[in-house]
């Protein structure tokens, strides 16, 4: 692609065009930063990039890779290399090496696709950048939806379907705070899709709430699903739910560690979402407590209280311990066992 370059280490442009080849490749040359129009972000696809590493590297070695530019009427337009340009600027560099295409040499869409491939190959895109990219492909570069789904979603490592595309297009409309949350927490596509189901205000409030808890993806999913389902079932807003005084007290309780706060929030939401199951679990805990079993005996209800089989598990290290465990179990009163078995409150044979 590159026609031919002479030099490339000096401050002045010393490029010589080759006249005997008819290709349309770019020129490699040194350009002044002042000649580049940074405000033109037609091909930009970075969202709040962390430039620290690149800056450190550039301090020692300079900017090694040329940026890609296209000539405009007055200045040069960046196709690929916004981060390198920004670093160069912060390091007060005056020139950068660049591949430069002529004004009519390369169309917008091709230039964007090249930049996209360049970025995918070099660093990959975060979720917000993927959203920006998809939106640009559709609305700025006129790529058809079907082609975006079929070709570009897989390139961005996304499932090629309408729902995924729609979720990402919604991300573009998210507020900056929410985008920052998605980016900084590396939120997964599944959870983004869940978040996209909330209103703009709810999303904003949710992200403020979630930012106070450092949670993994699975717990985030559980919390979002519980919030959504409770709100729908009870006809209340998610904002009201997360503003609940009990949740607020939990979050501001300095005696609780981060993981303890997360557990407390999960418990609160689970009780709200599954009140009857929680009630049964509470009854079970009470019955078990009243039995006063030693720690080496564990008693468990059937999963989700489905069926009538309780499970007793015990451990021992000697004949004496074994006999002690059996003795304890034998001594359990009829009443306490009866209470446990009647936990679901059925009145058998009433019909």
């Amino acid at each position: 692609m590159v026609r031919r370059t002479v030099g490339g280490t000096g401050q002045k442009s010393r490029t010589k065009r080759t006249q005997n080849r008819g290709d349309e490749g770019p020129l490699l040359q040194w350009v002044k930063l002042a000649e580049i129009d940074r405000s033109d972000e037609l091909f930009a696809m970075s969202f709040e990039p962390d430039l620290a590493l690149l800056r450190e590297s550039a301090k020692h070695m300079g900017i090694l890779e040329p940026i890609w530019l296209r000539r405009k009427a007055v200045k040069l337009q960046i196709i690929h290399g916004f981060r390198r340009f920004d670093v160069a600027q912060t390091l007060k560099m005056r020139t950068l090496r660049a591949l430069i295409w002529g004004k009519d040499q390369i169309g917008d869409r091709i230039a964007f696709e090249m930049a996209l491939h360049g970025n995918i190959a070099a660093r990959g895109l975060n979720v917000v950048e993927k959203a920006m990219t998809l939106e640009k492909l559709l609305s700025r570069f006129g790529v058809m939806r079907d082609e975006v789904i079929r070709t570009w979603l897989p390139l961005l490592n996304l499932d090629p379907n309408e729902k995924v595309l729609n979720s990402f297009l919604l991300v573009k409309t998210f507020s900056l705070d929410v985008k920052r949350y998605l980016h900084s927490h590396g939120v997964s596509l599944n959870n983004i899709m869940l978040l996209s189901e909330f209103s703009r205000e709810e999303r904003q409030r949710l992200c403020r709430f979630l930012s106070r808890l450092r949670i993994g993806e699975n717990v985030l999913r559980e919390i979002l699903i519980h919030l959504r389902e409770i709100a729908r079932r009870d006809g209340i807003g998610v904002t009201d739910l997360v503003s609940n005084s009990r949740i607020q007290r939990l979050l501001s309780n300095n005696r609780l560690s981060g993981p303890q706060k997360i557990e407390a929030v999960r418990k609160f939401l689970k009780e709200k979402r599954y009140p009857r199951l929680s009630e049964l679990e509470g009854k079970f805990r009470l019955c078990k407590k009243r039995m006063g079993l030693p720690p080496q005996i564990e008693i468990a209800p059937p999963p989700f209280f489905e069926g009538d089989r309780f499970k007793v598990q015990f451990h021992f290290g000697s004949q004496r311990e074994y006999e002690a465990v059996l003795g304890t179990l034998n001594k359990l009163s009829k009443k306490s066992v009866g209470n446990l078995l009647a936990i679901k409150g059925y009145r058998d044979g009433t019909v």
Partner: protein
Amino acid sequence: MLETYWRSKATEMERFERILLDKAVADDERARSILLRLGGVPVETVDGTSHVLRIAQSLKDPLGQGKRLLFLSSHKGRMVGICPGTSGHICCGYRILDLMSNCPMDCSYCVLQSYLNNPVVTVFTNLSDLIDELEMETNRPHSSVFRVGPGELSDSLALDELTRFSEELIAWFADHRDTVLELKTKHSRVDHLLNFRHNGRTVVSWSLNPQAIIEAEEHDTPSLIERLKGARMCQDAGYPIGLHFDPLIFDDYWEKKYQEMVNRIFQFLDSKGVIWISMGSLRFPPSLKRVIEDRFPESRILLGELFPGKDGKLRYLEPIRVGMFQKMISWIRDIDSTLFVYLCMETHPVWKAVFGWSPNSTEGLIELFDRRCRDFMRSSR
């Protein structure tokens, strides 16, 4: 006369946008009759199920659009099966006639959405093979009543105006002792059944829910009243009637809705002509949850307290189910304490909690059914 009736009704089947005709049945007489009744609907000849699957996969919304495609084919292999039941639960032993799969109605909770590989409404035209198989099955010595129906993978009557399977099936069962054909439906147009000679061996049964649930969850289905009118017509024509309260759907207002429904039903039907009533709570495999969320975002059925049971399917918390069953039975018994009520796909402990006894096993429930069928038919003569 009947032909005129069929022709007028056939126009109501215009929901089909395309017919996929398996080349294996291109010369089949029943397939040709169906095509005739759907005159005007484009026909595409296809090469077997795999071809249809490829077509289905290319659809944007296979489950929704599949309901507007009709695949006419021939069933290979056995056409009389047995309900697979579900692990750890007591099943009624209903046998299945594989004549159709999928359904033109669109209930949010329908398990077929995740159960069937092929989302296209499919009709197997080789009814004569099925009849041969029935002959063979019923010629074997058997002590149980041979209770069977095409209501497992489709609605028994939704496509009957096109297929006219019921006419031959009802006639066959009318002539065979110790057999019962159960046509399970949500459909309401039953006029064509009324003059068939059934000999009391065909049960026409309705899946019923309160009107509010029909509107919210049972899309493209007749209303409760339309279904009850159909049931009444069949009862007047001497058919034993079955009622299926399945799925029962729980919410804060369920009691009022279901009690009203029970009372309404028996304003239309004579309880003495009801051979059985089944009850089953909402249940579905976890994989269906995603389908419901995608296809029916307004549905509220997923907001209940649903947990996996021994078979992995999600069901309401056991005490919720028991409470619903107990109340339903008390309302039913208030109307007629002799009605035969059973639970569909429930566990032994739930039976015990609801009735105070349990059939203990699928075999036990089949025995109860045998007794009920024989007693009912004896008393109806």
